[in-house]
């Protein structure tokens, strides 16, 4: 409730969507159509299987208004093979992204070696090749971006970051949720909110 007061429903902000689906082809397309139809960008997307057999989870990060995300999540729930769709804001989830940085091996800037920087940033060196090494950092986008800025002076060769994976702070169990969904002969779509 307090959130609603802080932000008008039309101001854009970041949302993380977590979508449980049957493991069927074409779903990615169906999901992205909902965004493109409204000219909304997807900032990151991750698909993975879940602890329940045959059920996949899409994690989608987007920046839009509260009104729009409510509309989008309802459209997503409407897709026949979607089991549930949930919207989260930052404080409701634990999330991580993984970033890989390729840097020249012997670079030193202002007396600091890459190794120093890596150990101070909670990152780690993944591999060391003849001319370059690859650094891995897991964290949120602020943290991975921070390291990016620090590594830039060393002549960053390549940078890549994964989509977000997020786990909600609720104690919901995916399996229990799906069981309840299956059992609901009463056809309450609202269960997709649970």
């Amino acid at each position: 409730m307090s959130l609603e007061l802080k932000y008008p429903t039309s101001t854009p902000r970041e949302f993380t969507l977590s979508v449980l689906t049957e493991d069927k082809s074409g779903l990615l397309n169906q999901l992205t159509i909902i965004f493109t139809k409204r000219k909304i960008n997807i900032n990151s997307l991750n698909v993975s299987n879940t602890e329940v057999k045959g059920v996949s989870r899409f994690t989608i990060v987007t920046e839009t208004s509260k009104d729009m995300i409510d509309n989008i999540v309802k459209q997503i729930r409407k897709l026949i093979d979607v089991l549930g769709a949930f919207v989260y804001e930052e404080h409701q989830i634990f999330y991580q992204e993984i970033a890989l940085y390729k840097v020249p091996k012997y670079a030193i800037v202002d007396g600091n070696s890459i190794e120093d920087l890596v150990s101070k940033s909670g990152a780690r060196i993944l591999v060391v090749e003849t001319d370059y090494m690859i650094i891995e950092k897991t964290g949120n986008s602020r943290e991975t971006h921070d390291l990016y800025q620090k590594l830039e002076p060393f002549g960053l060769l390549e940078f890549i970051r994964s989509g977000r994976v997020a786990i909600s702070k609720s104690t919901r169990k995916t399996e229990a949720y799906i069981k309840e969904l299956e059992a609901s002969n009463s056809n309450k779509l609202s269960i997709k909110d649970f």
Partner: protein
Amino acid sequence: MNTSTLAVEKKITKKTTRIKGSDAVLQCLIAEGVTTIFGYPGGAIMPIYDALYHYQDKLNHILTRHEQGAVHAAQGMARVTGKAGVCFATSGPGATNLITGIADAQIDSTPLVCITGQVPSHLLGTDAFQETDVMGISMPVTKWNYQVTRAEEIPYAIARAFYIANTGRPGPVLIDITKDAQFAEFDFTYDKCEKIRSYHPYPEALPLDLEAAANLINEAKKPYILVGQGVQLSGAENELIRFAEKTGIPMAATLMGLSGIPTSHPLYVGYLGMHGNYGPNIKTNECDVLIAIGMRFDDRVTGDLDRYAKQAKVIHIEIDPSEIDKNVKTTVAINSDAKQALLGLLPLVNVSTHKDWIDEFHQCDKIEHDKVIDAELYPDSGEIKMAEVINRISEVTNGDAIVVTDVGQHQMVANRYYKFRKSLSCITSGGLGTMGFALPAAMGAKVGQPERTVITVIGDGGFQMTIQELGTIRQSDLAVKILILNNNFLGMVRQWQQLFFEKRYSFTELDNPDFQMITRGYGIKAQKVEKRENLDQAIHDWLHSEGPALLEVVVEQEGNVFPMVPSGASVAEIRLD
């Protein structure tokens, strides 16, 4: 698989028969109660057409002249029967020709099962002859779609297709079947789909919501019911009348909601939206409780949303949760089928009357009569007006016909002035506004309700978009009564050019062919009326003739449809001239 394991399997599973995929498609359709298919053959669907040859006693296939005709016909049939319409098309151009109708069905919640042929599975993705990604193209405009590449998937896909198309908020589904799957043999057995765990089509109205709504209704001084197509889709016509009569609340209908309540019902106050009636529009911004039933607050109904019903508490009865709070924020939302919601509300609402409030509508009606309607219905000189033609037809048919309208001025006029008496009788392309819809949709309506008079009202522009379906009407002997209101213009666009683009008639004038000669060329009776004194006789002859017949009425060229809520204006700013 060796024969001994097969024998064991047969013992434990349901009885199966070994048939081809193409036969299975037809057997599935028969099992779903399908009687008629509209379609057009081609390479990728030939195995199914070959099978159809042997099923002519069980399945009536109507060969249209264009796939768009097939899909609109299936829509027309679905709209008058309430059951999924079925159409067939081949891959590539056949499939893409269906898309307009599928999009139309999606936005107007019409159940359809469209079956398309596809190139053999080993050629998928090779840009083979007549290969199109119909899955990708149809995805945004279907409720569900599925590609079958193995014959074994056919019963599953078709069972799901009918279940999804027909239940909840209805809509179109598409099944794309590769040619090899049509040829392949498999052990066929059919079970109807009764449940999909991720799909819950019938949410139940919650007692708390019903009570909250009833409280608002019981306390309201100026309550107002807006009736959408959901009332007819859920078969809630009687419940709605009982509800309105008990509470004494006036009702107006959206374009898609027309014919859900008889036009003559004392509590029916008229038609909503851009070219709707005066009172129903302005009173939206004066009521205190707005009860929207099975409608989606389309912009053609609401005008400027920021100035729409802001003073009112809004109760929204709607089966599709994604429509709730989408355009208009609700005070109470009842997420269920219209019939279930009304049955739930009936015992909770008080008996009431709202005489003064309803009188306000009647006063508006009088203003509209004085300023618009009387001159439209009873002109004593000048060229024939669209409205008087519709009014005469309404009188002669006693409001009992199914009226299928195309898109444009004639559509608005027909739906303003036809006095519907029966449900599922106003068939029009509402959400998409598809010119060319009416002629083929009327064919489907006639097949679906052969005993009823089916009249289709079409403009001279839209007629030429699907005019080739006259061939289907002749070949299949569909007794559709076709009315062409010929103003030699793309009239609706011309009206906007006159009102909002300083009369710059940019490409809206039509140099039309001789519709009489064309229609007769197709072997269909045709007559043309240019003078008012010949109108009555012509209408009589047209309606009483055997079989299909066309009546062309030459109407006022630059007539305008009023009232009008200009786009972007508020419903309160409706113009009477």
